């Protein structure tokens, strides 16, 4: 009998991708909740890795008419010692319930694996750059120019010679402007001609032609065409993210860890919006320096605390390397809130005059120790200062964080999609 072998291995895979998307779409709210919950206990590095989530089956159930209870009869294999008429203890109430594969009990939770993209998408789905930042985004768009056809007016530098000449040629042909060789031929004939009547004839003809040449210019102003240019707004597709951190002795590992988590989230978030994201790490004690990532988080440092030093450093770097017109600038500052009292005025001024005007977004994250006592303490000097600035209408976002688990809610809170122009 004929047998066919078909090689399906090269067929497009993921035939069930659409079903999967439908499922995710339907379960969106639930999955999103689960993603947030599961990301709380995760290392930030792993946030991007996707992974397993568990959602309640509520609304995703596929109910069937199922029966339960009643008298049950069953036949089992493997009898060892029972004889007819024996009585067996009931296993504690639960009964023998088959654990169905993804079905079964509708109260069951449902576990499955999300891919990296799905995870990040769901995680950041309801987040958005604040309106404030978006307004600025529009303003800082740089302008490019592009060719946009031809115009009848313009600067002489933009004359399009080829277009002008071809129009002139067309006009000359249309108006039958005598060609040069035509006149030359007549003149040559005239020079050799002895016949008086013919000469006169030729002369009038020549004169008529020459007059016509004069009347019809080689290039008329109406022929002239200029190259036209249009200016178009070019969105800035790159961003720089400044990470400012106080590394003075009072910052514990725990605090740095919190800050790191926040920075990484911000990075992931910006990365989704911009093609190119650079990170600048500035750490400061009473002096500020730009360092690499490893030093930033792990390098030893000691000294007092001057926040303004970091802002000065940032301002310098912005001036030299990141023109605000070309770059979207984001800054996140983490600190335990300590600052020299004498520094407050300088810091405030720097922020209002230099830093905030060029930033799309400036977030201040005050990190505290794991035990929640930060909330009982009076506000730190930096917090007090920033709060005052914010009340004056400066676009500052600020939050306090003391537990790992709070990072995600705080981040989400900062970038939540907002309907009105409320301030964060």
């Amino acid at each position: 009998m004929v047998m066919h072998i078909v090689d399906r291995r090269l067929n497009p895979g993921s035939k069930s991708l659409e079903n999967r998307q439908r499922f995710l779409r339907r379960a969106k709210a639930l999955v999103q909740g689960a993603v947030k919950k599961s990301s709380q206990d995760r290392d930030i590095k792993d946030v991007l890795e996707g992974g397993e989530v568990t959602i309640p089956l509520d609304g995703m159930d596929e109910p069937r008419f199922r029966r339960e209870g009643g008298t049950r009869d069953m036949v089992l294999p493997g009898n060892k010692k029972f004889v007819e008429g024996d009585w067996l203890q009931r296993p504690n109430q639960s009964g023998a319930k088959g654990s169905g594969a993804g079905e079964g009990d509708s109260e069951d939770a449902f576990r499955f694996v999300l891919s990296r993209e799905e995870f990040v998408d769901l995680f950041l789905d309801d987040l958005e750059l604040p309106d404030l930042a978006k307004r600025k985004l529009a303003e800082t768009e740089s302008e490019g120019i592009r060719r946009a056809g031809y115009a009848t007016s313009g600067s002489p530098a933009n004359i399009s010679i080829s277009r002008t000449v071809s129009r002139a040629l067309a006009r000359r042909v249309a108006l039958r402007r005598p060609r040069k060789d035509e006149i030359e031929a007549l003149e040559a004939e005239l020079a050799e001609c002895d016949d008086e009547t013919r000469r006169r004839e030729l002369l009038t003809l020549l004169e008529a032609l020459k007059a016509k040449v004069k009347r019809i210019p080689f290039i008329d102003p109406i022929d002239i065409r200029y190259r036209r240019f249009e200016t178009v707004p070019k969105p800035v597709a790159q961003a720089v993210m400044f990470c400012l951190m106080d590394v003075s002795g009072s910052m514990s590992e725990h605090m740095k860890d919190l800050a790191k988590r926040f920075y990484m989230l911000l990075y992931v978030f910006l990365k989704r919006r911009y093609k190119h994201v650079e990170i600048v790490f500035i750490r400061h004690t009473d002096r500020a320096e730009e360092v690499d990532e490893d030093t930033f988080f792990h390098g030893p440092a000691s000294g007092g605390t001057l926040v303004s030093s970091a802002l000065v450093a940032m301002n310098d770097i912005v001036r030299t390397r990141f023109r605000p017109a070309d770059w979207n600038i984001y800054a996140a500052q983490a600190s335990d809130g300590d600052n020299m009292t004498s520094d407050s005025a300088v810091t405030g001024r720097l922020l209002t005059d230099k830093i905030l005007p060029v930033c799309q977004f400036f977030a201040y994250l005050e990190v505290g120790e794991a035990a929640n006592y930060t909330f009982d303490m009076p506000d730190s000097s930096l917090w007090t200062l920033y709060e005052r600035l914010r009340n004056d209408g400066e676009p500052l976002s600020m939050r306090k964080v003391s537990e790992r688990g709070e990072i995600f809610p705080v981040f989400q809170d900062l970038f939540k999609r907002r309907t009105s122009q409320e301030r964060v």
Partner: protein
Amino acid sequence: MGSSGERLFEGADWDFQTLQRIHDACEEVARKELGLDVYPNQIEVITAEQMLDAYSSVGMPLFYKHWSFGKQFAFQEASYRKGLMGLAYEIVINSSPCISYLMEENTATMQTLVIAHAAFGHNHFFKNNYLFKQWTDADGILDYLEFAKGYIAVCEDRHGRETVERTLDAAHALMSHGVDRYPGKKTLDLRAEEKRAGERRQHEEAVFNDLWRTVPNTKAKSKAALTAERRRALLGLPQENILYFLEKTAPRLAPWQRELIRVVRHIAQYFYPQGQTKVMNEGTATYTHYRIMSRLHQQGRITDGNFLEFLQSHTNVVFQPEFDDRRYSGFNPYALGFAMMQDIERIVKNPEDEDRDWFPDIAGKGDVEGVLREIWSNYRDESFINQFLSPALIRRFRMFHLHDDPAESQGIKVDAIHDERGYRRVRRELARQYDVGFVDANIEVVDVDLDGDRRLMLRHTTVKGAQLNETDTRRVLQHLADLWTYDVALTEVDGTDKVLKEYVVSPRAAAVAA
């Protein structure tokens, strides 16, 4: 090709020529020795990922889109990745040609096993078993699925995905009650079905259904009111195929919704025989591959090493954990089926006195293949076990019967064991576990209140006191009410018509508006 000597393959590698050789060798044994009669084979080589894909669309090569399959896929993918679940070596589809999927990872030995198992064992069963003959149309199924997929996609474009999804959700919830349990006048012809679908809709749209006249009738006639008897007769009640009833009589369904219900119903019907023949189907396939592999080994066409490799997978497949084993999850259909087929072989060839008493018809008859083919064609799990489970096998499995009456405070009673007094009872109870009549709840549409609020009335006749799970039942009834668009009432009664519980569910507003 000679019947002995020549090796089919060396080592674990294979290519398409190898598959062809394997197929031909298996076919020779299957036809000449076992006398199998199969649909033409089509063997498709797929990857593990495609196997997962196939899992989530109930094993069919093409299927309409629905979120529940995505859910299934997500679940299976998760357990596969964690290593909780191995993938099947093959999937075989009851169609003509009979399509078997082979995984590319399988070794040559495994491919031989799978071809013998699926392309001959299952294939023969599909083609010859009376249930499959009666209820499925192997020639038409793939075309019908193609039609269904296309039709549903068109509906989604035309009526919106949400609406279509709602209808399908509801139909899926009732799927287990969308099959005809008793054969009707004609066998299923899915090809004609597809062609007729369009014409039927046009016709029904054109014809006015007098049952649902909302404008008051002339006085004389309306008051003469259909008597209850006549009304039920007109509606074809009682009706246990709820989906069929909805398709034909639900008052406010759009024609395309009826067609969707019909699609779901046909698919449920297509799978109906599979649920009733698990033990037999797997038993047949396992017995077939065992015979074929042994013969190939005997002929020297596969090496001792290959044969040992085969035996190892075979042993895994037919492993039956005992009831107190952590791995126990009911009878393994492969194990039970294979054991019974081998046992029948023994009875036919070398019966003991006991077997002669129990199976006078087949004991010592000699023609093993003939007897087995006859059995494969004419039984389903329930009747098969009821007839052919022998005392010897009951002893071998050390089967025992437990009776758990919740009213009994002493606990669970051991009602019968593998002894002279118990054989028949054990056998009867085991057969009953496979009886669809007991497995599915017995729910019927009994009446429609045509004079009043058009309430649809269902009745669940309980068996042995098992009632419906309330949460799920409410949800299913909600779906049913949404399709019916008026109230739906379900009454649970016991054998003496005593009412145990009543449900009444009203349709959701969105469904009524639709």
